């Protein structure tokens, strides 16, 4: 199957978010694809606040089953979370479990005013009541199939992985 062009979707997503940003808005990318996206969106939107990043490994609900992920990175929120408008950014929305973990982590930094979710692709298959606020494309993929963002130099693209 052919996948949409990630660079095009990035522009679509930025156009959706642009009318809603204020001086207090900050982007928070979820490792790894979401961090690349957040950096690109940050530049496209010309935001005042620096972009943050979360690695939700410490909050995953499959830790007991799968152990601690290798290459867990440090989360970094270089701004006060308290009272801020935050937009979580991820490449692909699937089960919703990563978003659940990210929300839990976020609230250990403070109480944001509002949290929204921006994703490049919604591929369905939700296991939790999570919906994106901004979404550039929806894909209908069979359960075993996975799609993820890749970065080649400065260019983003979507790739299929798994069976």
């Amino acid at each position, binding site marked *: 199957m052919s996948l949409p062009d990630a660079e095009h979707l990035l522009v679509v997503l930025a156009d959706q978010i642009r009318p809603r940003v204020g001086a207090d808005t900050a982007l928070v990318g979820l490792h790894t694809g979401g961090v690349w996206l957040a950096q690109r969106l940050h530049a496209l939107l010309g935001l005042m606040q620096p972009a943050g990043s979360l*690695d939700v*490994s*410490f*909050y995953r609900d499959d*830790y*007991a089953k*799968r*152990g*601690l992920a*290798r*290459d*867990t*990175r*440090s*989360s*970094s929120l270089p701004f006060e979370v308290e009272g801020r408008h935050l937009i979580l950014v991820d490449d692909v929305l699937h089960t919703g479990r990563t978003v659940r973990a990210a929300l*839990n982590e976020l*609230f*250990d*930094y*403070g109480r944001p005013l509002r949290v929204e979710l921006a994703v490049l692709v919604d591929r369905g298959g939700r296991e939790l009541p999570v919906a994106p606020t901004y979404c550039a494309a929806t894909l209908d993929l069979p359960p075993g199939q996975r799609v993820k963002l890749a970065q080649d130099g400065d260019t983003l693209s979507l790739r299929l992985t798994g069976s």
Partner: protein
Amino acid sequence: MARNPQLNRHGELQHLLTTEGLPRDVITRILDTAEPFTVVAEREVKKLPLLRGKSVFNLFFENSTRTRTTFEIAAKRLSADVINLNIATSSTNKGETLLDTVDNLAAMQADMFVVRHASSGAPYLIAQHLEATGRDHIHVINAGDGRHAHPTQGLLDMYTIRHYKRDFTQLSVAVVGDILHSRVARSQIHALTTLGVPDLRAIAPKTLLPADIDRLGCRVFHDMAEGLRGVDVVMMLRLQNERMQGSLLPSPQEYFKFFGLTQEKLALAKPDAIVLHPGPMNRGVEIDSAVADGRQAVILPQVTFGIAVRMAVMAMLAGN
């Protein structure tokens, strides 16, 4: 080949008993994993949910307020329930054996034992007993056994060195002091060797060196001025007064004169050399206050990093 008793059949960390024989990639993974835990300590809420619902038993058959406290903080920041048992003053005095104590606590649904014991090998004995009786879901961390090992101290020292010096394969490192009685020194030396430190030195009076020091891969010095020349890292050890039997040393004053770290002696190391000490310090015995409080000392960062390293070890064990 016999399986490393610390690793499970997938080569993952099952217990942490010693840094000896711990593969380089496992050590590196522990250090890598500790890094994001240091960030958590700077947050509003310092807790993580990883060990929620788990029970960690601190089994201290030998007193140590500091080490027990750091393990307790690490476990609590991972949301575990922590039970402290100072067994030095408890049931073994009533005649209970080590393994009976362990069996009783295991029957209380323990998930992890942090063990400090005056006898070398006690944590290994516990780990072996748990596996032999089909309770290998319970993990054991050695928090110091006799003169044998103190692996989390060794690992937090490695974390500290890497934080300031990055590349182990370029370093000159001196371990200074009472190496004979020091489980910390052994854990440091094994880890430093595994991580590829090319110039490892042991500086101590002849009476405070173990017989097998050459086999450990150290160059031996009996003179501070010679041993410290050009080193990047100085790892001081505590003079173990309570472990001294007989007269290995003339007096603490005499020891300070020859082996105490002063600014003058430290000046022989590289200008950017760092000074570590596992604590508690005997000021004026193995280290001068001017050095302990000086700009090259990283003794308090060691304590902070120690929490993150212990969190990383606990989180890795509980997930394997």
